[in-house]
């Protein structure tokens, strides 16, 4: 389990084992606070800043990964 997945599972409030690229980011969970937390997580793990706008457009975990450009 990568550091990124662990952090993301916590932000999305799901079991780490349930977190896959296909997981949908439903509107109830993928709110402004989750986006803010994910920006901090990406910065911490990848030392990279992603745009809040682009992140808010993501609809699955896989789209976040694509945005980060990582293969985790």
């Amino acid at each position, binding site marked *: 389990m990568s550091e990124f997945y662990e952090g993301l599972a916590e932000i999305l409030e799901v079991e780490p084992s349930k977190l896959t690229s296909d997981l949908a980011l439903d509107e109830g969970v993928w*709110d*402004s606070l989750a986006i*803010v*937390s994910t920006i901090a997580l990406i910065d911490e793990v990848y030392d990279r800043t992603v745009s*809040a*706008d682009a992140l*808010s457009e993501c609809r699955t975990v896989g789209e976040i990964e694509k945005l980060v450009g990582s293969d985790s």
Partner: protein
Amino acid sequence: MNRRNGTVPARIAAIATHLPDTVLDNDTLAADFPSWPAEKILEKTGIRERRVAAAQETALDLGCAAAAKLFATGTVRPDEVDFLLFCTQAPDHILPTSACIMQDRLGLPQQIGALDFNLGCSGYVYGLSLAAGLIAAGAARRVLLVTADTYSKYIHTRDKSVRTLFGDGAAATLVEAAPDTGCEIGPFVFGTDGSGAESLIVKAGGFRHPHSADTLIETEDRSGNIRSADNLYMDGGAVMSFTLREVPRAFRQLLAKSDTNVDDYDHIVLHQANKFMLDALQKKLDLTDDKVPRRFEDIGNTVSSTIPFVLAGLLEDGKLDAGTRIMAIGFGVGLSWAAVTIAM
């Protein structure tokens, strides 16, 4: 002014703070926002309760109350103040300047200068720079710096993105000339990026977008938050990105400019935005908990007063004795940021 490294022989002689009476706790917020139980609000924001000004209570009132407490300590008398700086984004009127009204309310001499400046979370450090500059120029010896804000008046009750974070509050700081004491304020590092103006904004009510029927129209965002153009809007993601980009840079610039390293500081006092932002910043700056004092659990983010609230706590605990060196960094709406080294 010590031109060698931009320091001014001045000191923070006293700080007093003031909060309005009304408490807004997480249980109340949880009742308004069912998707956010009280425990989740506390866990994420680190905030248990905030204070909210009464309907007829303004930032000017809160600031005057803080200043009155400062005078009550006996550190300085009103007639010894020779300049008043007031930082707020919620003035009593468009004009006159709130600081002028404050001069009269506080019984300060008529022979003093008084002005408002409009900054948010970076405001305290900017205020210190103005005070230090007046002292360095010989224009003043005792500057009363008052910070006060009432963001609650701008916040829509259905907007959890800001209602959970911000609290009203005020602080009064006495900055005085202190030659030959070893006390120093400065150097400073400043930053401004107006391209981020829309990230944290109350759009209507000025002359670009005067209040109208249109500015009252409420809209709901993806997260279910409701607001109008008359309300405070914060793009939390954009503010987080900005903070993680600029604060570490300002931190490093100040270390270089003051020819210091992290170990030279007893306390690094960051603007108390909220728990998740401070956690992220602290990790990024590689700072230990004992070096980064916090105060937001019981008051929330009080905008320009968060840094003096922390400093007041340190003073009370005897942690700002002579010889202590601290760094303060403010950052937020503008976008605007600033950092300073202070030798107590």
